[in-house]
Each structure stands twice: as C-alpha cells, then as structure tokens.
C-alpha cells in the first residue's frame, strides 16, 4: 500500500489503483474518446451506406443538389483553422505569445465562419431532413459534425481567453494540447464527410 503511494518508479507489486500500468492516462483517455467518436460517426455512415449503396438510391435524391463548390470553400476554411491552431501551439512552444494569441483568434474566427456558412447552407438548400432518406442522412451526418464543431468552438473560446490572460508558457501549455488534437480530429472527420456526402 505504501509502496504504491511513494512513486510509480519506486513501487513494486500491483499497479497504482485506477490507472493503467501500460498506457499513459492522457493517451488512454484520448484513445477511448476517439474510439467512441468513431463508433457514433460509424453508425451514421452505416446508415448512409445502406441508403446509397445497398438500396441503390440516387445520390443526391432526385430534384435536389448539394452545394459542392461552396462547401469546398468551407472545407478550405476549416483546414486553414487547423493550420492556425498549429501555429498557435508552435508559437507558445517557442515562447511567442503574439503568435499564440493571433493563432487562437484566427482559429476561432475561421471555425465560427465554417459553422455560420454551414447554417446558411441549411437555410438555402431548399429541402428538409424529412423529405427523403437521402436528405435525412445528409442532415444527420453534417449536423453531427456541426455539433462537434460547436463543442470545439467552446473549447477554443476557453483556450483563447486563457491565452490572453497569460496562462500558457513554453513549459506549461498542456491545456492547449487536447483542444488542438480535438480540433484536428474534427477536421479529419469533415474531410471524410465532405468527400462521401458532397464529392463522391
């Protein structure tokens, strides 16, 4: 009991309670989170697969269209936001606080622009989720991703505020790593959604 409390490198016997002895806790947490996200997106993509491939339904549904070009620009905006958050993190690792703040502001603005354009697209599509199975799965997939973007924007807002308050330093900026990883994950998911729903 005491041996376990002394320190991981000194103890012998059973591993520390509630902690893996093989995988670092932050890595394990992120891995489990990503796995759960893959499951939920996987379920939605399964529905898309059954509607489009198994049932051979036309895509998009007859007399409808998807704004591929506009959303292509939106995709570039989201990809740019991943560049800017990477810039922000690279900056703080080198002690560049201006780069950190500019990067975070840019990321938040670009991410908000993406979501705003997506909402605008919903308003002007001309067809509703209940109009067809194709429409339902379109709104479901893009909407699920939009929810993830919204959550990401909440995380980015917190990081941006903390950046301006001087909470981060080259030695201590772990609180930025997870939102950064999450934002890149959101980007990867959008590439998959955009490619399958809009392009192919």
């Amino acid at each position, binding site marked *: 009991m005491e041996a376990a409390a002394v320190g991981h490198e000194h103890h012998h016997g059973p591993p520390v309670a509630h902690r893996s002895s093989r995988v*670092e806790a*932050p*890595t394990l947490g*992120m*891995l489990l989170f*990503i796995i759960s996200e893959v499951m939920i997106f996987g379920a939605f993509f399964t529905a898309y697969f059954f509607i489009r491939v198994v049932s051979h339904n036309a895509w998009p549904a007859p007399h409808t269209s998807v704004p591929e070009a506009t959303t292509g620009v939106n995709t570039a905006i989201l*990809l740019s936001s*991943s560049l800017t*958050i*990477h810039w922000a*993190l*690279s900056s703080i690792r080198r002690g560049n606080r201006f780069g950190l703040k500019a990067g975070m502001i840019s990321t938040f603005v670009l991410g908000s622009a993406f979501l705003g354009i997506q909402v605008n697209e919903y308003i002007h599509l001309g067809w509703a989720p209940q109009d067809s199975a194709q429409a339902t799965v379109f709104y479901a997939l893009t909407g699920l991703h939009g929810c993830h973007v919204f959550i990401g924007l909440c995380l980015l807002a917190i990081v941006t505020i903390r950046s301006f308050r001087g909470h981060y330093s080259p030695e201590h900026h772990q609180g*930025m*790593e997870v939102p*950064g*990883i999450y934002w*890149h*994950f959101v*980007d*990867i998911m959008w*590439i*998959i959604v955009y*490619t399958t729903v809009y*392009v*192919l």
Partner: protein
Amino acid sequence: MAFNPLRNESDAFRVLAWFVAVVAVIVAIVLIVRAVA
C-alpha cells in the same frame, strides 16, 4: 518523445496533413476513373 497523435498536437497535425493528401489522391483517382468510364 515517441510519435503519439493522441498526446501531442504536432503529431496529430502531421496525421491530418497526411490524411488530407491521401484522401485527395484517392478522390482524384476515383473522379478520373468516373470521367473516363
């Protein structure tokens, strides 16, 4: 530090960059094959 995109944002960014490149190539191939066929 070992490559770990789940722990390190730089590694995650590298995974994103590679993913975008690979998907772009795949989509380009599919669109070309569709255009030719």
